């Protein structure tokens, strides 16, 4: 079920640079970098985003050139060349970068290159200078990311913020900003890492906790989502949070905990189709098919065609062996949601069980076209083919299914049957042995 993304949090942060040394500007090789950063921050404070963006890019050029020189004098030629390359690509300023690259390449290895701008910096001061450059680069990328986020270009923002985090993972707010940008770019699987790290830094940030919970929900880490939502102080009063909590519980096969959550939601916020769908799914999970059918039918009454209601009904009928009813319900779901490959797969199962293998195969071809890595569909396709006598083709699909889901015992069984039909007894035996091991593992030992 798609979830509305949370509103992006405010993302304007200061550069938080290390305090600059009161040094003779003539001897300070970072003077250009500092100037560019100051100007960029000034533009940012004035709300001049385009100017700020341009100045941050200028700062990035200065920063990468200086970083290249620092790498070069320390004898890290590859890192130096990479830094000069980045200076070329970020700012469009190539002359100085190219010259520096050429000088590094021309210098004799392994003798370190002497950068002219670092001549006045004693070796003992270089680490401090490096820290200043790193901080400036991280800050520049961070704020460039924030500017992109303000323009709702979350994917681009996330790229810039990833670079900031790569340069300095501990830079203030970088994990938070990256997590939020990734979340808003709906890259939930990538968002969970930075959001988790940010929450570790700010454990009382309720908004952050909710964002992480929703990210876990979207990555099907239902128990983690439920754990965060369970502890949310505002959940009982917030219908959407309560709904998300119930959803996490249902999806995590914890229907017995979900049912009272939904009951409270119904009592406090009234009847809704979506709620009845989830309630139906929770009842079904707990084996109360009568109550599940009642809730799902109620959902369809409230909102004909509501997502997942007919699909869930279809699955219940399939489990009960009521195949014509299952077919009708699953077709109804697909009418409203034709791209629902899971429901299409279930319909193919029903068709096969009704002795209509050709229809099942045709449907599965469509499913696999839309989602080639759908292991269950690949398995069923192979199984139906095998029953039709196409053992060679079946084996290919079952092998693909086994690659996609190597711990699925049933795929191994079917693959063994395909090999058996092909006269490959040894290969079949291997698969049956894997099957037995996986089943034994599942039940925790022997029989």
């Amino acid at each position: 079920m798609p979830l509305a993304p949370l509103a992006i949090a405010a993302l304007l942060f200061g550069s938080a640079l290390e305090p600059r040394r009161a040094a003779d500007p003539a001897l300070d090789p970072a003077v250009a970098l500092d100037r560019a950063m100051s100007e960029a921050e000034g533009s940012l404070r004035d709300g001049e985003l385009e100017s700020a963006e341009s100045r941050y890019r200028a700062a990035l050029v200065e920063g990468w050139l200086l970083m290249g020189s620092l790498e070069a004098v320390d004898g890290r030629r590859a890192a130096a060349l990479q830094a000069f390359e980045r200076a070329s690509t970020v700012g469009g300023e190539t002359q100085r970068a190219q010259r520096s690259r050429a000088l590094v390449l021309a210098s004799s290895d392994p003798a370190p290159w002497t950068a002219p701008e670092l001549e006045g910096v004693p070796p003992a001061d270089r680490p401090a200078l490096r820290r200043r450059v790193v901080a400036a680069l991280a800050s520049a990328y961070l704020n460039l990311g924030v500017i992109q986020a303000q323009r709702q270009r979350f994917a681009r923002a996330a790229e810039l913020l990833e670079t900031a985090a790569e340069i300095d993972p501990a830079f203030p707010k970088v994990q938070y900003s990256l997590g939020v940008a990734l979340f808003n770019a709906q890259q939930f699987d990538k968002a969970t890492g930075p959001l988790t790290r940010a929450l570790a830094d700010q454990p009382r940030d309720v908004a952050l906790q909710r964002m992480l919970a929703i990210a876990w929900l979207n990555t099907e880490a239902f128990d983690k989502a439920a754990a965060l939502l369970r502890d949310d102080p505002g959940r009982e009063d917030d219908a959407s949070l309560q709904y998300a909590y119930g959803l996490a519980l249902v999806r995590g096969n914890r229907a017995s905990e979900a049912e009272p959550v939904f009951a409270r939601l119904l009592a406090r916020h009234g009847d809704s189709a979506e709620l009845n769908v989830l309630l139906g799914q929770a009842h079904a999970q707990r084996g109360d098919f009568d109550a599940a059918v009642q809730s799902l039918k109620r959902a369809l009454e409230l909102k004909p065609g509501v997502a997942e209601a007919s699909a869930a009904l279809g699955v219940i009928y399939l489990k009960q062996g009521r195949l014509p009813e299952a077919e009708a319900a699953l077709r109804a779901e697909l009418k409203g949601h034709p791209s629902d490959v899971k429901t299409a797969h279930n319909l193919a199962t029903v068709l096969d069980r009704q002795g209509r293998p050709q229809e099942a195969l045709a449907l599965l071809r469509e499913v696999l076209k839309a989602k080639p890595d759908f292991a269950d569909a690949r398995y069923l396709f192979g199984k139906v083919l095998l029953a039709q006598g196409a053992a060679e083709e079946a084996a290919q699909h079952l092998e693909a299914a086994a690659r996609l889901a190597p711990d699925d015992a049933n795929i191994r069984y079917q693959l063994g049957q395909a090999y058996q039909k092909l006269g490959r007894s040894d290969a079949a035996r291997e698969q049956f042995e894997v099957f037995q091991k996986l089943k034994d593992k599942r039940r925790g030992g022997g029989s």
Partner: protein
Amino acid sequence: MAFEHHSAPDKKYIVESMSGGVALFDYDNDGRIDIYLVDSLTVETAKDPKAARSALYRNLGDGRFQDVTDKAGVAHPGWGMGACTADVDGDGWEDLYVTALGGNHLYHNDHDGTFSDITARAGLAGGGWSTGCGFADYDRDGRLDLFVSRYVKVDLENLPEFGKGKTCEFRGIAVQCGPRGLPGTSDLLFHNDGNGHFTEVGEKAGVSDPRAYFGLGIAWFDYNQDGWPDLYVANDSTPSFLYLNQKDGTFKELAFPMGVAVSEDGGEQGGMGVAVGDYDNSGRLSVFKTNFAEEYNSLFHNDGDHFTDVSFRSKTAASSIPFVGWGTAFLDYDNDGLLDLIAVNGHVYPQMDQARRGASAGYRQRKLLYHNRGDGTFDEVAAQFGSALTEGRISRGLAVGDLDNDGRLDLVVDDLDGSPQLLHNELADAGHWLLVKLVGKGGNTDAIGAVVRVKAGKLSLMRLVQSGTSYLSQDDMRRHFGLGRETQADSLEVLWPDGTTTKLENVKANQLVEIKQK
């Protein structure tokens, strides 16, 4: 028939849920099939063997039966589970073997309406929790051997506590524990030494079940038609076994490669009863296995070199999903020349009626009767036969036989709780028929393992003589053929267990034919 099967009302222990075999055999050689019903103890009555009373009913031939148990001396086999029969010593009189928890019993038929318990002398006590049994001459030495499946290791003094533990719950309610979570136990093969004594050779023969699966129904049958009896064992909650007879006293377990170990999707099913029959008149014996609820009963079609799970394709699977299946049989109930199917059902948890049932039916369950359409599919038609089949019961054992020799197959069902059912076939428009009784020579007078083939018009039928059928039960060993409109069998051929054949031609329909091996 006043028999009552005993069981504790709450079935708090798995040992109180599994009993109830029934055997149909002519113990007094009067040409009428008699009935033996197995009773069981409970945890509460475990120390009083007389608290359970199994019963032998003599068929009087006028639709009535007489309780002859006490005279016969077969009332108290202990914690009885099931039964199978055979003329173990080749004297022409049927003997009775009863499986039990705590030691099995071989009752020798003394030809005068009484039996002697010769278990100890024969070495057939077995021990542990025995369930299925069946005799066959697996090494073709002319003497009948015996296979016994066993279920779970139990210690009555230390039973797993009701409702305590993950495998003692069903959808949140407390139920009996097992079989999952309990230790299984090995199976037994007793070789007939020919001197009235048997020797247990299961391990040596390769049928001992070292993985200790939960064995229940069994079937001896020659699936590959090489003349040597093979063996199928239905295991509960674990893969089933198909043992190929290697003709040297040993077997090779081939259930996985042959496609009969698990469901078509690799599901380990709760196998209970087994039926074997040529339902599509292909000349090959297919396997039907009853399973637990929310699985489905399995029909494995014998393709010759492999079996295919055709349960859904045959339209027998979907209707079976709600039921826990037990006794089962292929039978041509309407004599149309096609083997139909029956399965009797009943849940193991009385608490089921208070539980969220999912796709399962309640505790008491109706029967399933499938009419063979002749195209590889079946129609479930129990409702056409009224309450005899649709009444909810807690059925276990089922045996099929022609109790009144009228050419229509009758049914006897042993229920876990209460009285059994004797279902008399009164189908008015049934077709013509033949009933064939074989008399083998040598030690196997029942001709167990013989195959009878009948050709009648376009019909080409095949039946197998078996000891140990269904769920812990014994069908009438006389073989029944429905002939539809055909008034005679053009040919009737017997392939005897020793490989010799007898062929008759132009056999008139509607009669009992007795064929003696020469």
